């Protein structure tokens, strides 16, 4: 295995969920294409940030990498082995090296297990840690690493604040000394002042333990802060992938541009000057995605030709900068001007419908998959 080989390579990954209908016989009437042909590679020791709105398939992608959901097609190559074809003991062995931090820290911790039991379970399950004393020492080290007092051992998840719970979740994930950590919305359920603590902790652990991260989030500012490479997903496929700085300095895909212009900046001066690109309508249904470029129904830069009919491939515009847009060069050079959302809505007529319009069941299925947990 050469050093240049990425730790994780995903090739043509697809996850389709069948839509069943019928009283006695479950007929499959269609598929929700949650992930539809994604390629990505993550180098050792780096952080790959995956952003997109709810329902774009980013969480499903993360789960498919761990095989928590079965991929429909495609390969997930982790350190040279194809995870998608493994089963039984080899899969368990690979999973030890890939761990996950979940979004909702309370929902992902068993309320009836105390912290000691929560943290020792993965060690015992994988036969690691070396006996009772070994495990006890190891757990103490883990708590120390995530900044919790050792008095926490005898306590239960409900006794902790949100930030502390997320620390427990992180401690559990790193207890097996994984190579890859998949963090699905690690901070979106936390208060603003606590988010920064967890982000800093993740960064510190990455340096100390030489971890590789796949961070899935809807918050572009957080992703920008911690990622080396960022991929933007829309309706199941990557529309843009670029080094973090390059992407934020000059987003090339129309969707990335509008996404970034929608993020409010905590500075009134910037807010007043900032260019805002409002998108028309809602995310279309992934059960019945638009033809051609999937973004064409909402795209302010849509052209009469190609956009509606021809799916744009992900192509490399500059070193490391992948974009799937037919007109990326013209948009970058300012040849094409954006249209207002009203114009886009008018040209698209009824097709700017919410996902729920066509198929409420699908909508329910898609929504709530990774919508942010409410903060109150």
């Amino acid at each position, binding site marked *: 295995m050469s050093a240049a080989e990425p730790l994780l390579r995903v090739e043509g990954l697809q996850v389709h969920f069948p839509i069943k209908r019928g009283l006695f016989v479950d007929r499959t009437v269609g598929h929700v294409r949650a992930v539809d042909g994604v390629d990505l590679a993550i180098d050792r020791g780096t952080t790959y940030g995956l952003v997109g*709105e709810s329902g774009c398939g980013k969480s499903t992608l993360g789960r498919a990498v761990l095989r928590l959901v079965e991929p429909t097609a495609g390969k997930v190559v982790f350190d040279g082995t194809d995870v998608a074809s493994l089963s039984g003991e080899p899969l368990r062995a690979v999973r030890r090296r890939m761990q996950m931090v979940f979004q909702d820290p309370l929902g992902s911790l068993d309320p009836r297990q105390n912290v000691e039991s929560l943290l020792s379970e993965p060690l015992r399950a994988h036969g690691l840690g070396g006996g009772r004393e070994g495990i006890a020492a190891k757990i103490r080290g883990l708590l120390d690493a995530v900044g919790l007092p050792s008095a926490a051992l005898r306590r239960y998840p409900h006794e902790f*604040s949100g930030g502390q719970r997320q620390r427990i979740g992180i401690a559990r994930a790193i207890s097996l000394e994984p190579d890859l950590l998949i963090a699905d919305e690690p901070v979106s359920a936390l208060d603003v002042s*606590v988010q*920064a603590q967890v982000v800093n902790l993740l960064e510190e652990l990455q340096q100390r333990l030489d971890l590789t991260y796949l961070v899935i989030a809807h918050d572009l500012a957080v992703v920008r802060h911690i990622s080396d490479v960022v991929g933007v997903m829309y309706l199941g496929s990557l529309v843009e992938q670029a080094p973090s700085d390059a992407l934020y300095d000059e987003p090339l895909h129309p969707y990335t541009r509008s996404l970034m212009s929608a993020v409010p900046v905590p*500075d009134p001066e910037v807010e007043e000057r900032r260019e805002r690109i*409002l998108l028309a309508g809602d995310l279309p249904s992934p059960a019945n995605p638009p033809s051609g470029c999937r973004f064409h129904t909402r795209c302010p830069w849509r052209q009469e030709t190609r956009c509606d009919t021809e799916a744009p491939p992900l192509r490399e515009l500059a070193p490391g900068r992948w974009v799937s847009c037919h007109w990326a060069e013209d948009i970058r050079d300012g040849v094409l001007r954006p249209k207002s959302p009203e114009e886009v809505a008018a040209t698209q007529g009824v097709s700017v419908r919410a996902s729920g319009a066509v198929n409420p069941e699908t909508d329910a299925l898609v929504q709530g998959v990774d919508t*942010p947990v409410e903060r109150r």
Partner: protein
Amino acid sequence: MSIEALPAGEAARADGPVLQVDDLSVTFTRRGEAPTRAVDGVSFAVDAGETVGLVGESGCGKSVTSLAVMGLLPRRGVRVGGSVRFGGVELVGAPDRTLRDLRGADMAMVFQDPLSSLNPVVPIGTQVTEVLLEHRDVSRGEAADEATRLLDRVGIPDPGRRLKEYPHQLSGGMRQRALIAMALACSPRLLIADEPTTALDVTIQAQILELLRELVVDTGTALVMITHDLGVVAGLCDRVHVMYAGRIIESADRHDLFARPRHPYTGGLLASVPRLDGARGAPLTPIRGSARDTIPWAEGCAFAPRCDHAQDDCLTEVSGSTVPLEHDGPARELRCRHPLRRPPSATGATASGAAR
């Protein structure tokens, strides 16, 4: 446009602020437990056409404040003190009838979670027209036409069809729009929006914020925006009140507040959010501890246990008095004895490494 300007008579009445909250306090009592004071001496005013932001983290009392203003808190186990005057009418202790007449007609609220604030078994159209039939002298047909216009105004495509649909058939952004349409139905003079965009995606959030912004400009509605997102505040609010542990700790105009945060908590909040336009890799400086690490205001500044500027006299037993909310320059108020110096140091308010 379906939302008409204020009738002349009402506009004349609204000389003073639309909403005047004075020394509002809310105490929850439960048998066998010490009472919890969720809101403690909160005062603010909102003028017509003005947007006021209440900012704070979970548990700081911002939502309870809004519920108390609307008179939506249950009577049992809750004690509301102080005064809330809406266009000269005292709302605290007002009979249910008065409140019912005002709510929906003159003051309205948009809640955070649109799915649980809409009735799932009633079509959207019925829910929107209900407000109109209740408060205005219109026939069913007129109300339905007005509802169509309202949905159209808030940007719901094909409103005629949508009126017959149920909440689950609408996407999250549309539900929030429908909720806003209901709130706007009777052209209220005051709109309270409690985290209206927290459950939404950023592109949808941008659409909703734009809608609220237009609304304030076009109709002169007074808007109270409750949020934890400083970015939303920066783009929308004229005046900002930062709350912590049930009290307002800093009030300032938007530009002033973001340019020169004075309270260490405000400074800490600003330093702990990553900015999209900032330099990458710039370290975040979180506030240590969590919102649980507070002390009662009677014993001193509630933020003192998490504050890096805290000194001994932040505690009541040392200084002999609780920390007051004081005048701090033009149009600014501050509740702190050791505020940040101007301009704030680049490292922010609190030390990094917060893992304690």
